[in-house]
């Protein structure tokens, strides 16, 4: 579908609002989209400040408390309402069975000092939003097979799962815009070469390409490097589609009168591309990005799920789900499936937001 461009992007219309302002207003009217945006914002916020929100560090494990159910938080005691507290649990005879010990009451402390961490790589701190004194763990979402707090891992895993898509889409967009722009604007030999490359990439089913690329990555790379490589693989697979559409858009804009006018006035190529052509692709790019991010998130979790993506001990929602793939675990320890729920919520929110954006920015579709 060709996107029909409007010339009046920068011209003020009667009501005194620019078209963009009108579009935004339309967006804000959409309650669903707003809620979705809010959820996304919260998730990213939690992920960025994960070390603060999480009671423990990413690798902390309570080796005797594996598969521990979520700790119940109590708000009342025999005297009525109190500050929240938990009971300690003891390991019972048998395996992965825990008994609540009502003798041991542990109040939940806020702004507690715990494992130290570096925020954003700059600030050192050891303050956590909440925690519990002594060695008694607080597992608000339960613990996994190594005795690690699931809530902590979900937060840290969120960093991976949420940002991989985010960063990948930036790279994809960047490359797609450049390649598509050059291809459409200059045409000729460069156009042919780039478009042939696009065709090759788009002719391989994306998952097969991902599979092959991910399978050749050695597993013992540092997790940061691996993260970077997975992002690159996703982007490598994604830029082609975008480049092709951008090229189409550029081609049609190229023949518009105002471009000829700009040329006649002496504007150089770079200026024309940057100031006139690319902005008209903005709508498409924004919509496409919002729709592509959930795709990337699902691809990364899929890869991690089958063991080719992010590796232990790093957490990613996908590899956490992979560890849950067992009927005993799912029936006896169902909290292990929560990462799946988080993936679902994130993807759902992006889809709703994307849909709302599309309605607002481009009412024709």
């Amino acid at each position, binding site marked *: 579908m060709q996107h029909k461009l409007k010339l009046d992007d920068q011209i003020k219309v009667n009501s005194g609002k620019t078209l963009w302002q009108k579009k935004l207003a339309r967006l804000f009217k959409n309650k669903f989209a707003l809620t979705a945006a809010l959820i996304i914002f919260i998730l990213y916020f939690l992920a960025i400040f994960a070390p603060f929100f999480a009671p423990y560090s990413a690798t902390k*494990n309570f*080796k*005797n408390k*594996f598969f521990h159910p979520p700790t119940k938080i109590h708000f009342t005691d025999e005297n009525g309402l109190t500050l929240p507290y938990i009971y300690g649990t003891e390991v019972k005879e*048998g*395996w*992965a069975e825990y008994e609540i010990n009502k003798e041991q009451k542990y109040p939940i402390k806020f702004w507690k000092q715990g494992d130290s961490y570096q925020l954003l790589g700059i600030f050192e701190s050891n303050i956590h939003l909440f925690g519990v004194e002594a060695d008694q763990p607080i597992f608000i979402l339960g613990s996994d*097979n*190594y*005795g690690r707090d699931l809530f902590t891992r979900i937060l840290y895993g969120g960093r991976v799962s949420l940002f991989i898509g985010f960063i990948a889409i930036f790279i994809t967009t960047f490359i797609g815009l450049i390649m598509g722009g050059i291809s459409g604007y200059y045409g000729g030999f460069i156009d042919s070469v780039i478009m042939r490359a696009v065709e090759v990439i788009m002719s391989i089913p994306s998952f097969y390409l991902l599979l092959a690329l991910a399978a050749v990555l*050695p*597993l*013992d790379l540092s997790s940061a490097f691996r993260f970077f490589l997975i992002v690159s693989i996703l982007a490598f697979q994604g830029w082609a589609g975008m480049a092709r559409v951008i090229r189409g858009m550029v081609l049609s804009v190229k023949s518009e009168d105002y471009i000829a006018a700009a040329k006649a006035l002496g504007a150089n190529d770079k200026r024309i591309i940057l100031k006139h052509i690319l902005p008209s692709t903005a709508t498409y790019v924004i919509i496409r990005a919002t729709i592509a991010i959930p795709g990337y998130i699902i691809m990364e979790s899929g890869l991690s799920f089958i*063991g080719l993506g992010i*590796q*232990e*001990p790093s957490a990613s929602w996908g590899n956490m789900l992979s560890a849950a*793939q*067992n*009927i*005993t*675990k799912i*029936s*006896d320890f169902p909290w292990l499936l929560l990462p799946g729920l988080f993936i679902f919520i994130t993807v759902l929110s992006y889809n709703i937001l994307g849909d709302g954006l599309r309605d607002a920015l481009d009412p024709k579709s």
Partner: protein
Amino acid sequence: MTKKIITILILVLFIFNISAAAELKDPWISKKEQGQHGGTLITTLLGDPKTFNTIIAKETSSSTITDGYIFEGLVTRNGVTTEYEPELAKSWDISEDGRKYTFYLRKGVQWSDGEEFTADDVIFTFDVIKDENIPTSSRDVLKVKGEFPEYKKIDKYTVEFTLPESFAPFLNNMTAPIIPKHKLYSAWQKGKFNNTWGINTDPEEIVGTGPYKLVDYKNGERVVMEKNNYYWRQDPNGRSLPYINRWIRVIAESQETESLLFEKGQTHYLAVRGIDYRRIKTEAENNNFSVVDAGPAFSTNFLVFNMNPRNPNLKIEPYKYEWFTNLNFRRAVAYAFDKQTMINQALAGQGTKQWSPISIANKVYLNEDVKRYPYNLEKAREELEKGGFKWNENGELLDAKNNKVEFTMVTNAGNNVRESLVNIIASELRELGMTVNSTPIEFNKMVNQLSSEWNFDSVLIGLTGGVEPHQGTNVWMSNGHLHMWNPVQEEPATEWEKRIDELFVKGAAAVDQEKRKKYYDEFQEIVAEKLPVIYTVTPNSLYAVRDSLKNTEVTAYGGVLWNIHELYLED
């Protein structure tokens, strides 16, 4: 008068010959309860076979189809006692000096196409194994002192092997499957043996002496087998075994799928994983199956440090050699192994602590009195101090020359148990101030590092043991290429490795069981003392078996189907 005697004599001889012709079989009668004939057994397989040619098969997914079911050896081991039992050979003699083995073949055994099994087949099988153009693992293990034994046919039912010197493990090698000369000789002659009996061979072509023959194979789906109508074993009533007519083996791509299939009632038995044990055991009460705990399995998992002076990394990090060859260091690591947590977390509570290189399940050779290192971080710290290590004010461990102790520990990705073990070990070592970079890597890469590049720091890996200790020569002898901490040595690097070499040579040459046990006992003591590898825990062999499958005797060694020829299905 003489005429009468002669006539009688001739008559007697005649009758004798006739009865001899009718009774040429050396019977084997099942001692278990008489069962019903008929039925279809359904089990699972973890992976497709890559070939039906048992001689060149290299992976268990192939040999598990053929060995013991389609093909048999001269000798086999009893699934319960693990002792040698006659199979295609009804008996054998060993000469005083242990160099000559004479096998008396069972008479009247027929291949699944009706042809008779004779010494020609045995000779042919060993001709093939000996052939350098055939890529088979059986050849090397048969060599004694680098030489393949001599063998010859004495008569139609007798074969004799002559070894360069006495070699106790020889009988173990005689469990090798025998292949039919009449089906494969011409292919071998034409040099096409390596391409015969691949997975798209017409099942009719695959002929063996075993209880079952191949009937169908669908890639990725299932293997179908049916009973061999010419099979030589009999039930108590004299009727030919096996009882079960058909055997369908479903290919499942994961242990998870196997579990699901069993729980949906579709298969007759399941190798239960530790994590499912408790749940399945509870289900067994209301269902038509029972759960068997067959005790520790024959597999081992251990940590090995790189003590190879040829390690290319030593050019950059020479101090690692000092650490890993320091016995106090290794002892400290051993004391830091929290084996109870390993059993709880990695094996879901279903396991046993391991201290010796011989599998716990190996009742014959296990030495229970080797040195143990019960979990004790204090003792670990003492050992480190003894070894010249110390801690800085951040609690980090330093060696005598102030190098921070940091190294990598790898294991193969995808193996949940091993990944779990690495996680536990690394945690404890971090408590001691070491910096451990633990990561799972591809199996292929790990193998490369261990066997050719020699550039690892430490690896957690496992091996499956057997009953015969000599099978481990590649690992324990100093020139072995699986002598992981320092492989393919030209001369033994240490006194104790030299002693182990001697023990293995002596153990193989000694024929007296008592003597052999003494040698291998000492070998286990040395390993526990010097810790070239540090053992972890052994999983238990757990099986769930449907009540309708009768006559089973489930063991860690034999599994469920070692005596499939006498198992039957009750309606």
